[in-house]
């Protein structure tokens, strides 16, 4: 089983050095420590294991080192920054592995930008050697790229000419969308295996600054000082230690404290059950910081993230996530309002960021998501996001049941209208209504109000409201129907329906780029015995089917 939590004492591929408000991450990939057997991680090339460590490192810096404003990513290997994703690993991996690998690495890259855009850490890539493919894509995800001008170090995206695939971790998109590289120059750059160095790299906007080896460290220092001045919310002192998750993995499911799951392999359904916050979580930000990763919002984000990652990677045949919850609606609303009212506190800001990125992982999961609101549920505030990231919601309608049963209820919070944006830059509510402003203004008036099924349905917040007698059967039928459809068609359908409206760099990466890449990954020109990806390194030329499709 692939797991995603790491112990800092056991990092194999990175070392971290922290000085004042700077953290330097040195990449030094251990060749023999691939996460799966069968390939050597030469030339600082990476696989999923390297990226899992990177994700863990950055996450820990966010919480444990609240004084760090800038992260510098560089290499410990002589004249070699990174050769990118390991080609032999890609060549031998099954399709699902490649797709999951790309998704996770993309999410990690995006998280750099997410931090940078939300008052948290900024990132600088100090490219001190050859930087190719996925290596350059790590750099592209940083705020600034510094390239050593030693007459040999280049940046390059050699995937097309060498491997017959695309740079799949956002490279193509970030060149033109983020760095404004002209498209014709990008065309030359992406078809040139040798890469571009020095001044020309700056002129083409491929990097921001260059310096000869003797001045390179100075350049880094200068840029760190400059960049750190623009960081707003990294003013903590004590930090919050991210302790080991309290997790029990069994055949039936994976259980944490605030998140439980049941995996029904037979029916191919995983139930994610959230236990809402108790009232001991209704405390000041300072008290919350002391409580640390025991504070419900952070605990929930960590546990949900871990669960999503484990399910996505290890339970490939589970096609539907049902999301349920139990708890006190007032508590979750109040906890949400603590976040809302203290957004300028570094810890709160990081917690919101963690929640934002975790919920995004759900939006980007290629699983059907049905959120189910029954008598015990507490889908309000933060947890209301789970209503809107779902493909469908089912809410129990008790209006015909005995008079003694009230509820269940849902409520909106301010936080549902800002701060928990999806990768399209819009909140889930805005996305749900394709950014219809009058509709959103109407919904704002309902903030903190309790809505039962009929009310929530009339406000267009819920998909189906079966009554108490239909409830079980309605859900059973929907789930059975869902799991009978083609998994591929559902993945395509959901990925399209979940993101109406405008595009962003990220939606293009997860939509356009990934879809094309996944297509290419399935094509003989890349993966047949005579395909470019398979033949890389053998000296034999790939044989292409030359029909353009």
């Amino acid at each position, binding site marked *: 089983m692939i797991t995603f939590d790491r112990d800092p004492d056991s990092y194999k591929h990175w070392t971290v050095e922290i000085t004042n408000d700077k953290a330097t991450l040195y990449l030094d990939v251990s060749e023999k420590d691939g996460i799966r057997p069968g390939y050597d991680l030469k030339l600082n090339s990476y696989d999923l294991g390297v990226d899992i460590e990177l994700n863990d490192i950055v996450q820990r810096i966010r919480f444990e080192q609240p004084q760090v404003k800038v992260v510098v990513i560089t290499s410990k290997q002589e004249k070699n920054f990174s050769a990118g994703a390991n080609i032999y690993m890609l060549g031998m991996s099954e399709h699902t592995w490649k797709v999951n690998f790309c998704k996770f690495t993309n999410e990690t890259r995006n998280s750099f930008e997410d931090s940078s855009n939300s008052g948290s850490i900024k990132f600088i890539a100090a490219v001190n050697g050859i930087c190719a493919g996925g290596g350059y894509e790590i750099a592209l995800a940083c705020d600034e790229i510094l390239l050593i001008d030693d007459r040999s170090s280049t940046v390059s995206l050699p995937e097309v000419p060498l491997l017959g695939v695309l740079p799949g971790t956002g490279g193509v998109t970030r060149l033109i969308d983020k760095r404004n590289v002209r498209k014709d120059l990008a065309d030359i750059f992406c078809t040139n295996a040798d890469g571009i160095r020095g001044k020309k790299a700056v002129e083409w906007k491929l990097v921001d600054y260059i310096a000869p080896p003797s001045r390179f460290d100075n350049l880094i220092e200068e840029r760190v000082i400059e960049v750190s001045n623009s960081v707003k919310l990294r003013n903590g002192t004590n930090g919050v230690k991210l302790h080991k998750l309290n997790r029990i993995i069994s055949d039936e499911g994976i259980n944490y404290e605030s998140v439980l799951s049941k995996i029904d392999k037979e029916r191919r359904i995983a139930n994610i059950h959230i236990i809402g916050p108790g009232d001991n979580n209704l405390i000041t930000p300072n008290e919350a910081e002391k409580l640390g990763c025991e504070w419900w919002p952070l605990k929930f984000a960590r546990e949900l993230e871990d669960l999503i990652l484990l399910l996505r990677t290890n339970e490939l045949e589970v096609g539907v996530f049902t999301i349920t919850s139990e708890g006190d609606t007032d508590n979750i609303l109040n906890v949400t309002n603590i976040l809302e009212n203290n957004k300028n506190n570094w810890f709160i800001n990081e917690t919101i960021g963690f929640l934002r990125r975790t919920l995004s992982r759900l939006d980007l999961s290629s699983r059907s998501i049905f959120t189910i609101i029954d008598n015990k549920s507490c889908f309000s505030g933060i947890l209301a996001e789970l209503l809107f990231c779902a493909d469908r919601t089912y809410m129990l309608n008790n209006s*015909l049941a005995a008079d003694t049963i009230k509820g269940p209820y849902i409520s909106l919070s301010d936080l549902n209208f800002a701060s928990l944006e999806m990768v399209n830059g819009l909140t889930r509510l805005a996305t749900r209504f394709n950014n219809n402003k009058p509709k959103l203004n109407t919904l704002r008036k309902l903030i903190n109000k309790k809505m039962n099924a009929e009310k929530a349905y009339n406000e267009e917040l819920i998909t*189906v409201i*079966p*009554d108490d*007698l*239909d409830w079980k*059967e*309605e859900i*059973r*039928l*929907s*789930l*059975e*129907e*869902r*799991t*009978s459809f083609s998994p591929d068609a559902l993945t395509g359908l959901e990925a399209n329906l979940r993101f109406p409206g405008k595009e962003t760099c990220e939606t293009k990466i997860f939509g356009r780029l990934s879809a094309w890449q996944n297509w290419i990954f399935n094509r003989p020109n890349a993966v047949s015995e005579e395909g470019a990806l398979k033949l890389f390194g053998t000296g034999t030329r790939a044989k292409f089917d030359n029909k353009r499709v």
Partner: protein
Amino acid sequence: MTKLNYKEKIPNNVDLSNDLSLQRALEHWQPKFKSWWTEMGPEGFQTSDVYLRTATSVDADGWATYGKVKMPEYRWGIFLNDKVSDRKIHFGDNIGDPVWQQVPGDYRSILRKLIVTQGDTEPASVEQQRELGKTCPSLYDLRNLFQVNVEEGRHLWAMVYLLHAYFGRDGREEAEGLLERNSGDIDNPRILGTFNEPITDWVSFFMFTYFTDRDGKYQLKSLAESSFDPLARTCQFMLTEEAHHMQVGETGITRMIQKTLEVMNALKSDSIDAIRNAGVVDLQTIQRYINFWFSSSLDLFGSEISSNSATAFANGLKGRPDEMRYKDHSEKNNSFTFEGLSLENTLVEQTIPMRNAMNEITRRSYVTDCEIGLKRWNRLIKKAGYDIIFTLPSTRFRRNIGIWAGIDSNPEGIIITKNEFDSKVNSWLPSEGDKEFIKSLMVQVTKVNKTAGWIAPPSRGINSLEIGYEYVELRQ
């Protein structure tokens, strides 16, 4: 909410008194059904006492309990044939698996569609026939009409039961839709074309119950094979009643022929004018009505080559009528050869996968079944000394659905030009003149023991009662 006594009000064997979900659904639907019946049911007889058969249980005694009742107070019930324990799927891809007591989610929409399509025909025929009471040839026939009507109503209930009990909210919406669509309504018609034509004369009514209700029989027989057990058991029980409707059709046509032959013998003439002047229907016109109703009923079986029928068979949703008579119940790799249509509109032998031919296979069984009545009628004619022989037209004749749609052929099935078809159509199908003539015969007869002149009295009464019994007590 007032508690209904369910067992009393709605005879059933589905434990309605303990099924809250079903009760709640029916409490919404039943008033709508009642008002539908009042508005769209038999016109002018809602306060009459009618001698009707009511099903009160599924056993031999219970399925036919007789008594006089006002139609709006008829006790429409819900009955399924008894459960066979350990019943297994016996055709398609999942042979040997246990049958389904619940709707599998994967087949939810397709099963719902099958049930809705079947269900839609039941109230449709009541609507089509609502004017017929005004021209009934006798009280006996009037009673038979109403018996057919209330049982079609019960068949609607049976389908609504399945929708309510197994399809949740969607099912309830569809159940209401069954009452909202109306036969012949331009904006909201019944699903199948044939069910939108009003039936305004009794010759058509008898033809309908002989030919179109027989399509119903074959559809029910296919559904009675279904792996969705509640559907299978519901349809099995409906078949008993459906058989009686066809009986109404067959004896009706027989009596009409008898009367015509009687008149022909008295006149000692087979001149059509003479026969018509004597107030009975000439055999040639009857043949044209047979041509019309047989051919429109054929369309109800669907296209000769059908992917839907293949899906329904492979998944075990809808079998062949009397599936156990066939040797191979999977038919996965078998093929079916029939005379099809070439690109040049000529006949050509065509071979298709067997599963795609299920509609055609069912249609053929139907045709064979239809022929039985014709044999009996031809015997009557022969015995009376005439050499006219009734025949069924070719299955290619006058089709609107399937590979023969839009192809002009004569009743023998030979492909002809449109011009030829148009010039001869009046000798093959009822003309305006035929319809006018039939209409002129339709006079209401409601005196006890009297029968209209164009049809012979029945040979025996209902439930061993005499023919002259007052089967319907009219109250104005």
